């Protein structure tokens, strides 16, 4: 076990993958000498050479499109999109090509491409640097979408993503990059909990609180605060956003009867809507109350002096928990 930051844990996982498989190749803007703007690829070009860790021209569609060609050729490209808001120039290549190639060719062509995306807000950045674009991708069949919430998962799940024969979007919560945690580097990613599975990070019996990525920590803190008030919250880290692990979610909701989902992304058409609808379909008779969403607003990600209002914080999550439990809350007395 070693204490390391989130960013370091991903670096270490990338290193393992580069060592274990000569077909793994890293590509992106500024990932070489600079080590990426967040230093996630720090030192890798020095150790593996410029043909394994490639600084690309400044062109996102080019980065993903050439990764498609490399995958055709048997490589396993791991690309870095520098910030969430810069994935849109590559959107066409991701949703029209990467996602559909296996289906289109009836399985003949695999797209083992991992797309690393530092995402989410909370770091006081200018516009286009704090987006949560995951729902665009969970809506597209053929893509796997995961989001990591702690250094140990970051370390194992990046290796699982790279080993996957399917394309994987790997969303990294950038405001957690400097958080430290224990990482066991001897864990074999093949026998670790699969990236497809959700994990119960705190057991509880009154309400199920679902989070992923940056908000798992906030959700855990909220559960601790709720416990002080005698409310027992079960916290689930989704880990995989597509496909969703409904068995873990269903088991929890059957137990608690109440569901709160939180994410930074805007509410409408977001992942919370999918979780709420699917759980309602599956567990309708076990639900004691309508599912509650505590999310970002349906606004463009705001400038930094307002982002603390947009991001679900501990108090807003607790208010949502109160709503699910029918306890006094900010909307008490309102219908619907």
């Amino acid at each position, binding site marked *: 076990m070693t204490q390391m930051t989130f960013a370091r844990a991903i670096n270490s996982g990338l290193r393992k993958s580069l060592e274990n498989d000569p077909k793994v190749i890293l590509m992106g803007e500024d990932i070489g000498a600079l080590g990426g703007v967040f230093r996630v690829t720090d030192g890798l070009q020095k150790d593996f*050479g410029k043909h394994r860790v490639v600084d690309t021209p*400044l062109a*996102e569609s080019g980065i993903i499109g050439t990764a498609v060609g490399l995958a055709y050729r048997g490589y396993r490209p791991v690309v870095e999109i520098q910030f969430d808001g810069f994935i849109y120039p590559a959107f066409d290549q991701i949703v029209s090509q990467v996602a559909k190639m296996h289906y289109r060719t009836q399985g003949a062509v695999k797209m083992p491409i991992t797309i690393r995306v530092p995402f989410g807000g909370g770091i006081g950045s200018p516009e286009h640097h704090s987006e949560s674009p995951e729902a665009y991708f969970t809506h597209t069949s053929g893509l796997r979408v995961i989001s990591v919430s702690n250094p140990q998962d970051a370390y194992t799940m990046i290796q699982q993503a790279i080993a996957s024969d399917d394309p994987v979007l790997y969303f990294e919560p950038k405001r957690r990059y400097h958080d430290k945690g224990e990482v066991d580097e001897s864990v074999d990613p093949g026998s670790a909990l699969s990236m497809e599975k959700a994990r119960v990070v705190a057991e509880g019996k009154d309400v199920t609180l679902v989070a992923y990525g940056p908000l798992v920590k906030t959700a855990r803190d909220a559960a601790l605060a709720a416990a002080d008030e005698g409310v027992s919250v079960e916290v689930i880290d989704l880990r995989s956003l597509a496909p969703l692990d409904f068995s873990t979610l269903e088991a929890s909701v059957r137990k608690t009867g109440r569901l709160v989902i939180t994410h930074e992304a805007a*509410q409408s058409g977001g992942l919370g809507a999918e979780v709420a609808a699917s759980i309602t379909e599956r567990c309708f008779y076990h639900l004691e109350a309508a599912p509650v969403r505590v999310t970002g607003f349906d606004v463009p990600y705001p400038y930094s002096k307002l982002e*603390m*209002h947009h991001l679900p914080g501990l108090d807003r999550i607790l208010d949502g928990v109160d709503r699910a439990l029918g306890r006094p809350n900010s909307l008490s007395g309102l219908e619907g």
Partner: protein
Amino acid sequence: MFTDDAGKGGISAGGPGNSDDSTRRTGGDLLQLITPEGERISHPEFDSWLQDVSDEQLGSLYEDMVVIRRIDAEATALQRQGELALWPPLLGQEASQIGSARALREDDFVFPSYRDNGVAYCRGVKVEDLVRAWRGSASAGWDPFTVNVATQQIIIGSQSLHATGYAMGIQNDGADCVAVAYFGDGATSEGDVNEAMVFAASFQAPVVFFCQNNHWAISEPVRLQSHIQLADRASGFGIPSMRVDGNDVLAVMAATRIALDRARHGGGPTFIEAVTYRMGPHTTADDPTRYRDANELEDWAAKDPIARLKSLLDRKGLLTAELEAAVAAKADAVAAELRAGTINMPDPAPLDIFKHVYSTPNSWLDRQQDHYSRYLASFGDPAEAATEEGAR
């Protein structure tokens, strides 16, 4: 595919075609009117575009360059003091920005990138508006239509398409103004910039592509973006280009005037590569020592655009104590204005977050706003809800 340093097969930019120092390209083909030593060189074609530039105007170009350098330094200091979240310095690019912006007519329309604060200043953007977005107090610093400058673009290269579309509009309207897109060397790799050149050429739109080749796109040298000179790329699209010394304010001004004149008279787009150098970091969050050689910096310091114009003024006997004092006083005043404007900038109100998402009311959002205002009210003191908590 290229070969890597060791000559082993593989992918990397490098190899025989471009492994040299990119400054090699700043050779004799650069259009230059003032030498780094401040000597005025005459040029038959370019000089005719500068006949009206009086001694007084030379002094005012000097003033503008000194003032924007000072704005840049003050903003960098404000960032270090925690008053701004981030700042992208333009140190070294003063001649490119002032020389080109001063060539524009008031009704021309500029589409800039985040680094073009000198251009914006020159167009009349108020200094505190230059930092509004970097402070996190607004998404955009100014109303584009009051100064004919679009808000600064962060998505690399996007604005080149906007400029082209604006130019197509100018053309439809039968007007003779021009749209100008400012972008960096790295931007030329993006699809948007290439598509902008396709449209501009197809429609012969009155647009000027003003590329400041400052040699670096964050940590990536210009040779990673292109194996040929950037100016030469334009010819592939059927767009004429010029490559000018971007640290020479007169060369930049003349080239921009030529391009503007061509556009005004139906001659279509022009691509200008202003060869300059970013002397500072990419932004205040960047550490250029990780990727950049100190010698390179020294070489470029010797070509400083302000020192160069100052030497020219000196040679012409125009660098009087009065001029120096007036310029220094102006720079002091602008810096003080910027500092006061920044520090006194009011914070937005919490519910501002819902403003301007749509131009007409939207029931989904109205409901969210109503719920959030009830949430804030549940704290009694709304300031309590506005903690940093959301970001924890």
